[in-house]
């Protein structure tokens, strides 16, 4: 199953290199997230794939056919932006039917397909509404339906959920995951939000300063961050190296050889039966747990969690356990 293949792609704006010798594959039927901070070149990469930027060198191919010189509208892709970019002068139904009209499908086919798509994105009966009357989440659903209308070979999603507030974003991320699978879509998603990437994609590529620093399945990237920066970007709370890392390794994985480790906040837990001793420096109660900052003997100041109700007054001595599934070894930096 071939799909999108990006080979050694470079995009420049004047003397600035926005995309720097990038290789990327999006196998047909998969959803790949390109994750990176703003300004890392991920949107430019997406635009180059869409044919909206002309690469300085390298190739973009689909199913083995080079797309060099193929204009955007002949690539058979669909693009969905952060803010939907609905056509304000058309109603919801006409927005979704837009790509169908371009292809001269009959009115009956258009109507049926629009109804199907509205159903798919959970907006039954919204066909006559104008975009101005929709909420942010509804607009994104319409934009998604429009992008899916003619079964594009590749769906390009540019921060599709970033403009939404947190609760809606989480809900829509789950929906997006399901809708893409149900539609059997091949998709490339760019985002700066690792939670969005994990919720929607099967594979991910982490991008930094125009380069892909790591790629693989979600699990591979998650378990083996390429470096400390990547680990932090993926949501690891701390990266520990030197004496502290060795101390943790002795307890968590005596047979391993890593010299540096990334820890989730919940990797360390206040636990009367734990092997480590620590002093509480700060404690903050949240609805699910107590977040603490501990001065761990032999490892220094580290974040940790405690179950609600645990006695973690500042200055108290506590014992701490390690959850080995929530730590990931990383190569020593420099």
């Amino acid at each position, binding site marked *: 199953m071939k799909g999108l293949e990006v080979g050694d792609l470079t995009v420049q704006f004047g003397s600035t290199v926005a995309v720097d010798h990038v290789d990327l594959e999006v196998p047909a039927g998969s959803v790949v997230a390109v994750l990176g901070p703003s300004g890392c070149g991920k949107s430019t990469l997406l*635009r180059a794939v*869409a044919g*909206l930027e002309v690469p300085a060198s390298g190739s973009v191919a689909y199913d083995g056919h080079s797309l060099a010189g193929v*204009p*955007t*509208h*002949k*690539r*058979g*892709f*669909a*693009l*969905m*932006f952060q803010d939907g*970019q609905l*056509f*304000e*002068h058309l109603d919801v139904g006409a927005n979704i039917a*837009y*790509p169908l009209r*371009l*292809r001269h499908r009959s009115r009956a086919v258009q109507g049926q397909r629009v109804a199907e798509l509205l159903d798919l994105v959970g907006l039954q009966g919204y066909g006559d509404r104008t975009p*101005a009357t929709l909420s942010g989440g509804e607009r994104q659903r319409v*934009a998604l339906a*429009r*992008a899916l*209308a*003619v079964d594009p070979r590749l769906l*390009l999603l540019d921060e599709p959920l970033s403009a939404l507030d947190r609760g809606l974003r989480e809900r829509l991320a789950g929906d997006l995951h399901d809708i893409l699978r149900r539609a059997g879509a091949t998709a490339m998603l760019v985002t700066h939000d690792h939670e969005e990437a994990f919720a929607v994609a099967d594979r991910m590529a982490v991008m930094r300063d125009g380069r892909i620093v790591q790629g693989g399945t979600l699990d591979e990237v998650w378990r083996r961050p390429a470096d400390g920066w990547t680990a932090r970007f993926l949501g690891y709370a701390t990266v520990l190296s030197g004496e502290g890392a060795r101390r943790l390794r002795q307890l968590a994985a005596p047979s391993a050889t890593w010299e540096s480790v990334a820890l989730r906040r919940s990797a360390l837990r206040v636990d009367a039966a734990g092997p480590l001793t620590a002093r509480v420096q700060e404690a903050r109660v949240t609805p699910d747990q107590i977040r603490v900052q501990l001065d761990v003997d032999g490892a220094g100041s580290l974040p940790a969690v405690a179950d609600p109700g645990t006695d973690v007054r500042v200055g108290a001595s506590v014992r701490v356990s390690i959850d080995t599934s929530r730590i990931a070894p990383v190569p020593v930096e420099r």
Partner: protein
Amino acid sequence: MTSLRSRAGTAALAAVPLLALAVFFLYPVGGMLARGFWPEGSFAPGRVLEVLARPRVHRVLWFTLWSAAAATAVAIVTGVPVAFALHRLRFPGRDLVRALVVVPFVLPTVVVGVAFRQLIAPSGPLGRLGLDGTATAIVAALVFFNVSVVVRTVGSFWEAIDPRREEAAAALGASPAQVFRTVTLPALLPGIVSAASVVFLFCATSFGVVLTMGGLRYANVETEIYLLTTQELDLTGAAALSVLQVLVISALLALSARVRRSVVPVDRTTKRVPRPRRAHLPVLAWTAAVVVFLMAPLASLVVASLRRGESWGLQNYRALGTTGERNALLVPATQGLANSLQVALVASLLALSLGAAVAFLVSRPGGGRPTAVLDGLFMLPLGVSAVTVGFGFLITLDRPPLDLRTSPMLIPIAQAMVALPLVVRTVGPVLRSVDDRQRQAASSLGAGPLRVLLTVDLPVAWRSLLAAAGFAFAVSLGEFGATSFLARDDRPTLPVVIYRLIGHPGAENFGMAMAASVVLAATTAAVMFAVQRLRVGSMGAF
């Protein structure tokens, strides 16, 4: 309490410009109309209707409508591609071209008329086309004038379209032509309609161009009013035409205001526009051709100013210090320039202070109906014939308590009225772009109303105020319609000097007219270049 006080302040602020408008616009125009309806002191509307039945009036009306419609259509078709090139592409020299395109709009109408005639006269560079004295030439001159309005208005709409919307359509399979038809054009349409209505307005009320180019064959409503009042002393006929004009113009203004209101506000993107690609070559070539079209009459004017008979040199410019061949003028042409500058300074200050107050009032959020009425009221001078205003001044402001016949303020006031709508249109949108919550934040931090004005509105608006003042100055420099009535022979402005010179025979007078036109054009262009550097988006857009 505060609300009451601020309401009283608002009323006071509105009172000054309203009073000025009433005394120096509505009253003279009303007086002019009254002369027509009450010819011998008694109401006789039947006479007005009789005028409208005259075959000559029908011809004039027909010419006004079709020449304005044709010029509008051509200006739109000409200007839209240029708007794209100048507002959606980035290339070296773009700002210069933008400035060049605006120049014709502020050129004195008399200069444009003279420049076009020079270009197409049998002896001119394009004399072989045989366009001299034809309707085609008049339409071309009207297009020349108004292309910049289309470029600026449509261009500002084009800038507001998020390019990603078009990219989304392209990614969904729309070819460039389909993208334009289904996405770009619907978004531009309000801008195009708005530009078209304003251009039609300008064309239908154009005075200097038709007067200098139409000769005896072509007259529009505006020049006909002038002719009826000054040559035939037929005030009833003039008043009838003025009434007709006011009605048509008011309807048009209402329509264009409606279109403006229905525009969906779009977030302006700060995205940088792209450099041109090969596909943009036709648009760039078109833009170059339009620039040539806009510059050709001016170039030919400059050439003519450097020539007298067979000899070349600066003698025409040197002659500006004289009163012309056989004393065509009462004072030297240079004195006319000095008068013009003085008048323009006073007129622009007046227009700025009144216009800023109006712009401030109409930009307050939640003004509702009174604001809309105020806005429309101050747009009226845009549509009422300047000739009507000028003549109205003459016949109403000639007795106590308002006897201004000999006052040096007469012309500046009349010109300020003509420039007022442009000031409001330039400053208003800028003030409106200030988020009202910024004012609320400032006042919650302890700033009084004046403080809010100085610290929130002024930093945003000062450029547009300066630009509006410059714009008013340029408009006033070239104003001819009202001034032609009010200027006395011993205190003429430069456009009046030019008109007088081309009306007198003699190579020296003709050469002087050319030189004076170049000086006037250069002065206005210099002011406009300075204004252009302020980069106010709303300038010259309607």
